[in-house]
């Protein structure tokens, strides 16, 4: 039998005398090779989940009842991008970035400056904000890249607060009150589909990237950086590349939010932008890239329903976070993937 695995951690303690056995579905085994293209059933099995995601996201804006929920979808998309960025950096580059708000802040302000001061059309300033913002984030975090694990996390945690302090102290870029109105996007459909297209590109692009040679090097840096160094590859340079790619997603989210709200201010460095993506990534399933996106698309509307209760939203994310880390560390998407590919049965021991 192929792929027989034992029930592992996370499952409830098994009763005496029997245990859970997991076996790969026959269909999964048949679709592993090239001959999967022989039958529609097998092609559907392979393409189905991906097609479901793409089509689901494509029709989602049409199904939403009113403008309010369409705006929520826009915000959820931005959070989803941040969550993907966190997941990519944490699980494929080994940089645990607890300060996603720094990316939204830098990306948002960069794009906002182009639109507000220089009157650049919004598509160009979002693009510039994304690329220049990511370059700026990489440059500012360059001195901290030799750090690992907790050290890097601690530093990234401090940056949004410090950046906010610097802006408030120097009174630049609008200071306390912020700047507005920043010219926005033309209508809600463009806003919706822009973020959906970027999301899909980010998910599928990053999934492709981590499978390529470059992705293997990135994961090498995460798992064993000494080995990478011994192979004659610069660890810091690789990390910088990874950080640049990861912050592209984060900075796009920031630039997008500025043009969505038509406003830029120090609220771009708010803790929400750091903590919700992490909660989404943990809830959706770390290391899957698509999972964090699903997590964000679930958590953001949920927190929107709780808007009336003020800070209860943040408490909610934090509770979701603690609950998932302690009791379901694998996350939703990993669990779903297992159910999709395998079946479970009880066997006598």
């Amino acid at each position, binding site marked *: 039998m192929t792929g027989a695995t034992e029930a592992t951690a996370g499952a409830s303690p098994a009763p005496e005398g029997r245990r859970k056995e997991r076996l790969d579905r026959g269909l999964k085994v048949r679709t592993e090779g090239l001959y999967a293209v022989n039958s529609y059933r097998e092609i559907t099995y392979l393409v189905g989940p991906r097609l479901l995601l793409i089509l689901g996201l494509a029709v989602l804006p049409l199904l939403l009842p009113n403008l309010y929920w369409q705006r929520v979808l826009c915000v959820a998309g931005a959070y989803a991008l941040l969550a993907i960025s966190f997941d990519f950096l*944490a699980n494929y580059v080994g940089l*645990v970035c*607890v300060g996603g708000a720094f990316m939204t802040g830098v990306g948002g302000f960069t794009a906002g400056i182009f639109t507000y001061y220089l009157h650049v059309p919004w598509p160009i300033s979002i693009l510039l904000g994304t690329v220049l913002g990511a370059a700026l984030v990489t440059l500012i975090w360059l*001195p*901290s890249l*030799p*750090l*690992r*694990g*907790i*050290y890097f*996390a*601690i*530093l990234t*945690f*401090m940056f949004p*607060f*410090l950046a906010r*302090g*610097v802006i*408030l*102290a*120097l009174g630049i870029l609008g200071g306390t009150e912020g700047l507005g109105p920043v010219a926005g996007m033309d209508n809600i459909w463009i806003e919706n589909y822009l973020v959906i297209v970027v999301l899909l590109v980010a998910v599928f692009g990053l999934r492709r990237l981590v499978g390529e040679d470059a992705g293997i090097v990135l994961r090498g840096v995460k798992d064993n*950086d*000494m080995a990478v*160094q011994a192979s004659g590859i610069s*660890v*810091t340079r690789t990390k910088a590349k990874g950080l640049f790619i990861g912050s592209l997603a984060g900075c796009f989210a920031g630039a997008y939010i500025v043009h969505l709200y038509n406003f830029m201010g120090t609220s771009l460095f708010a*803790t929400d932008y750091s*903590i919700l993506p*992490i*909660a989404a990534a*943990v809830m959706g399933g770390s290391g899957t890239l698509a999972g964090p996106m699903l997590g964000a698309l679930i958590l953001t509307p949920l927190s929107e329903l709780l808007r009336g*209760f*003020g*800070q*209860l939203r*943040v*408490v909610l*994310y*934090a*509770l979701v*976070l*603690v609950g998932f*880390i*302690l009791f379901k*560390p694998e996350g939703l998407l990993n669990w779903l993937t297992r159910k999709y590919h395998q079946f479970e049965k009880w066997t006598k021991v």
Partner: protein
Amino acid sequence: MDILIYGLVNSFIYVLMAAGFTLVYGVSRLPNFAHGALYVLTGFLVWTFVNSAGLNYFVSILITVVIVALLGAFLYRFVLMRVRGMPVSEIIVSFAVALIILEGLRLQGIGGFKGFIGSSYTLPTFIDRTVSIAGVVIDAQRLLIVGIGLAIVIFMWIFTRRQKIGLAFRGMAQDEHAAMMLGIDSDLMAVLALAVGSSLAAIAAVAIYPLGQVTAETGYHVLNAALAVCIVGGLGSWMGAILASFIFGYATTFASFMGAAKYQDVILFGLIVLVLIIRPSGLFGRQKELEERV
């Protein structure tokens, strides 16, 4: 002269803020991101005991320190112990606990709770008078901060060198596996370290809060200050933490005397980046340099 004395006070404020965090990290290698939250919680509990329950100020301080210490121990036993050894989860979970406490204190309208917002929440000073030292007028509370800071430093020094538990702490800090072979219970020590570290946060809160207001935002500020001190001083190093506190204390005091008080964050930022470029492991960070940092 002003700079000298107020710098000293500010330095000890940093020492107090960072002491608990350094201790916990040094002993159990756990970055306790709930440090700032425990600090704020102390202020809130003392305020509640004094103003709502009508208890004596010192009695309520005593009760609060015990409660916060227990909370720290529970935090390890029921939350952090389950994710120990996974740095990412440790950070995320402790930060999430911090958010639950901090933002929970700001909740409004549930059960008639008015939320912990605004400037009406202050703790009274212990001794309400000013003292003049070498021509510098200073209030007694600030002197008390120096006293408490010094007492904590001396207490920790004696504790970790003369007491059995303190020696076990040092053993854990130096080499956890060797300490476990010698019969030191790693989890028990971590529970104790979190209890002591949390009570240090509580003592710091009680000493520092009378100077300002009790708000949830101070939690982030304290956490950032503790992290900055530990990064610059080298994580888990007492000497480094004290030295870094003095650097920060005098730097910020100097800035505010030069009429640039609002640039404090900029200075903090600059110092951290500078230290990272010159010495990535911090001023005194030697332990496990190779493994922790490339």
